[in-house]
């Protein structure tokens, strides 16, 4: 299959400015859904598919919308990995890596440590009365928890965060900045060393972690495969829980009526989580490449065409979600697309749900009394490939 780096004949061409997308992609997506639900966007080098129903259809046809994208930024950053494979290869790797992320394992093996990690971080800041809930809490928490699930006892939360940031930047490096590539290479080499060491340890003594599970998989997995897949998980595993935490916390702090209800009824945290992931999806797009000619959204795409499934846009589709731009935990339930669908359904979904909605939010809102946003703080929402708050400045009673 050759890669087509151009618009399919008949596809509308829409110019979008990357800086504007990073600032706020939602107005552009709304326009695309209305006027060009499949459009070639030169600055992205892909066709953007923006309506809910079309995205769901594409996700359910992995044999047509292949994850094996040539020239993918992720491939370049981390090497071959399960996110850029199709079944049966994808299934082999996923089966090896997945057991430690299943919900019962999360509850029985990891929940205790997650809770301790959250308390430790809160102990450290509680007396201060002010802080940045992203940098001081959500990011180090996500990184520390991830180190535990992966089995990277030889890495600190700061290592994990730094590695993740370096790789995520490369993965969204549509502007091809050489410094970004260099930093990502340094990070991936460090991860390879750390994984090799822990894989050796897990071979002698299994510990239930992802590395251990891959080392002992029934269907054997090579060390390089373990290394590359751990890189991918470090990429997504920090920013997704961090971003859902931040965006949801900010939404609640702006809506004290909703916050009071949720604090009084812990069963509602689940809904806050799903609605936050719908409203501002931490991952905005998934790249796909066509294995055969296929018509979607009224455009005949030739085999080899590059498509981005814009799940951030599908999650704001007015034909599915009424007043889609509003954060509303009471909206009639329709499944959102934030975790992706089909065989690539997010492997970290259960980990993130537990660490954010069962632990992080409830602990922060119960331990930091009088929690409030700092007025006038420059807490920016940023990104379109990945999107979240860069900071969340708050005060509370010390």
């Amino acid at each position, binding site marked *: 299959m050759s890669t087509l780096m151009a618009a399919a004949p008949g596809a509308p061409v829409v110019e979008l400015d990357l800086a504007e997308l990073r600032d706020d992609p939602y107005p552009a997506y709304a326009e695309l859904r209305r006027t060009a639900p499949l459009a070639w966007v030169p600055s992205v080098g892909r066709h953007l598919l923006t309506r809910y129903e079309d995205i769901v259809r594409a996700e359910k046809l992995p044999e047509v919308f292949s994850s094996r994208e040539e020239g993918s930024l992720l491939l370049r950053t981390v090497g071959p990995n399960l996110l850029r494979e199709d079944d049966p290869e994808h299934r082999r790797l996923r089966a090896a890596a997945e057991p430690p992320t*299943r*919900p019962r394992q999360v509850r029985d093996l990891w929940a205790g440590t997650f809770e301790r990690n959250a308390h430790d971080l809160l102990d450290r800041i509680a007396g201060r009365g002010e802080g940045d809930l992203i940098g001081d809490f959500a990011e180090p928490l996500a990184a520390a928890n991830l180190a535990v699930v992966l089995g990277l006892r030889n890495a600190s939360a700061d290592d994990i965060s730094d590695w993740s940031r370096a790789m995520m930047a490369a993965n969204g490096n549509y502007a091809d900045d050489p410094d970004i590539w260099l930093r990502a290479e340094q990070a991936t080499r460090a991860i390879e060393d750390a994984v090799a060491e822990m894989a050796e340890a897990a071979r002698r003594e299994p510990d239930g972690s992802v590395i251990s599970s891959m080392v002992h998989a029934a269907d054997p997995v090579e060390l390089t495969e373990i290394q590359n897949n751990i890189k991918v998980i470090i990429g997504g595993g920090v920013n997704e829980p961090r971003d859902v935490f931040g965006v949801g916390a900010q939404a609640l702090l702006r809506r004290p009526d909703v916050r009071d209800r949720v604090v009084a009824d812990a069963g509602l945290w689940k809904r806050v989580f799903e609605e936050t992931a719908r409203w501002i999806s931490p991952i905005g797009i998934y790249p796909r490449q066509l294995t055969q000619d296929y018509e979607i959204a009224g455009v005949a795409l030739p085999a080899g065409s590059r498509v981005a499934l814009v799940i951030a846009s599908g999650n704001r589709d007015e034909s599915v979600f009424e007043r889609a731009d509003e954060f509303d935990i009471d909206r009639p*339930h329709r499944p959102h697309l934030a975790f992706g669908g089909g065989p690539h359904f997010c492997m970290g979904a259960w980990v993130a749900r537990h660490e954010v909605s069962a632990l992080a939010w409830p602990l922060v809102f119960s331990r930091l009394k009088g929690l409030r946003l700092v007025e006038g703080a420059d807490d920016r929402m940023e990104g379109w490939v990945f999107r979240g708050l860069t900071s969340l400045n708050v005060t509370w009673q010390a």
Partner: protein
Amino acid sequence: MPIVIFELPDGTQRKVTADSGTVLMQAAVSNGVDGIVAECGGNASCATCHVYVDERHGELVGPPNDVEDEMLDFTAAERRPTSRLSCQVQVSDALDGLVVHIPEEQV
């Protein structure tokens, strides 16, 4: 080919023909039966294809497998003794006339 019946929470029934050798979830999805979300496409990792097998047909369908059993503890609607993930139920001629009930919520 067996006919299976999906009963929606409001009591309406959808009769669909299921292909032997596939799974119950596929029969629901390919016939557009509401209420079976099946986010993970049948990999027993999302718990959004939950069904209650009708009491009369419990033995016919049998118990959940291990991975499924774990996932069933985390369904959006309550787990019952007859709960199954429809993506883990193989369709065969023996299931002709099977009735399954779709829960209120999947996510």
